[in-house]
């Protein structure tokens, strides 16, 4: 049987590989460090690793929200079949981000973690986002979708909008000064959410015109 490039059996492994690249790059950089070389992670590799994992997690999370607008623009419905994998990768990178902060920054001190969560706004926001992601990751299987029923499942997964906002706010509250990075990510998030608002409004108006003409 011949496989075409547009076949899901080709596209999905390709996407899996693409979403793994940030991690593979990071492992390669840590390999360099282990052999005593300074790589792209620079003079403070722990900070660079935390930042890189956080950036990657937030960007992949925003990518899951970009699937619907991309589908609407390129008019190719099968693209939504990638969303689960992208969402799970977002969860994976958020988890790695947390592990790198907890392990390398706090040296696995639970008291330090609890203190941070209670005391530091950006950690509180980030942790809330992570905790809310857990039920979404757990209910990502076909069995769970069936068990919850599509309506309830959909309602639960609307949480991703709040989680993405928490991610951007976490970024805002962790930076010093008024940096452009958080604004850029907020802008992208608002664009992606705005698309949905405009679309639902325009569908309503379209129906309205139809009714008026009748």
């Amino acid at each position: 049987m011949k496989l075409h490039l547009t076949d899901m059996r080709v596209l999905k492994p390709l996407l899996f590989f693409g979403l793994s690249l940030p991690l593979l790059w990071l492992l390669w950089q840590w390999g360099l460090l282990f052999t005593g070389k300074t790589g792209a992670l620079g003079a403070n590799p722990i900070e660079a690793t935390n930042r890189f994992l956080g950036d990657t997690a937030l960007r992949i999370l925003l990518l899951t929200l970009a699937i619907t607008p991309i589908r609407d623009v390129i008019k190719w419905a099968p693209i939504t079949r990638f969303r689960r994998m992208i969402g799970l990768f977002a969860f994976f990178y958020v988890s790695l981000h947390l592990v790198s902060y907890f392990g390398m920054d706090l040296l696995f001190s639970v008291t330090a973690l609890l203190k941070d969560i209670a005391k530091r706004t950006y950690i509180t926001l980030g942790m809330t986002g992570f905790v809310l992601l857990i039920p979404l990751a757990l209910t990502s299987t076909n069995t769970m979708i069936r068990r919850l029923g599509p309506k309830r499942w959909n309602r639960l997964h609307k949480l991703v909008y709040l989680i993405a906002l928490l991610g951007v706010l976490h970024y805002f509250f962790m930076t010093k000064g008024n940096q452009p990075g958080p604004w850029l990510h907020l802008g992208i998030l608002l664009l992606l959410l705005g698309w949905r608002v405009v679309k639902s409004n325009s569908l309503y108006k379209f129906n309205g015109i139809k009714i008026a003409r009748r």
Partner: protein
Amino acid sequence: MIKISKPWQLSENQCTPEKLYLNRRQIIGSIGLTSSLLATEAQAKTKSATTPLQLTAKASEWSITDPQTPEAMATSYNNFYEFGTDKTDPAKYAKAMTTDPWTITVEGEANKTGTYSVQDLIRPDELEERIYRLRCVEAWSMVIPWIGVPLRKILARFEPNSSAKYVQFETKFEPSQMRGTRWPVLDWPYVEGLRMDEAMHDLTLMAVGMYGRELPNQNGAPLRLIVPWKYGFKSIKSIVKIRFTSKQPSTSWEKSAPREYGFYSNVNPDVDHPRWSQATERVIGGGSFSSLFSRRKTDPFNGYGSAVAEIYAGMNLKRNF
């Protein structure tokens, strides 16, 4: 309304594009470069002007003996938001800053105000090498051999009057050369300040070099402050203005987040930054792989307490953070 152009008014397409105008020196410079390529080999060798100048300086008793941060790290990992908020940005983009000619304007409560050159302020025979620990407010530290002149010697020449209680410093602000200033990360230009007794303390250095050479742009060329018992951001870079004031001057980080950064900003392990602990610090460039994970305990006043604690006697340092 009909717009009638006056004969002397130029249309948009008759103007020199701003980009070309702003780059005019570069363009002329590149013409020079082309012609020098045609010149003899001997002439071509004069391009050594771009390599940093070696500086000779006396050793100082203030120097610490801790292992020094590798030069490559001290010059490639630092904050200089005028060139971007990533700590690798200064090394990437600070080359665009012109440091010659450079003038320093002295204003305010002093007898000898005016405009000075770097050479007016820095006398080669006064240069000292000071190996200091630099403690960043972000909880990392480096050990850097600076070369400079004690600030007190420079300030004394301006003859500050009795109203001069504080001194404020200002960093160069030139958006065409400093890409980070095109976004309002902070209220540009960057300003910092010291109380007069802090400025006149012998530890406070006006640095012009590091690691035996003149300062690279990313570390604050051609001259910057080093106040080793305070968080790094107090050690203002690329100074163009010195102003003697009677009132406590505002500082950039205090303006940006008064809850997080105070005027004094003395290194203090007992006063946390609202977003992270200041009890320990990561030592940059520790050498071994395992040292990446270790942290050292932060010392009060960054270890310079025996020299400076007395000037804060009776002050509540938790409130005056």
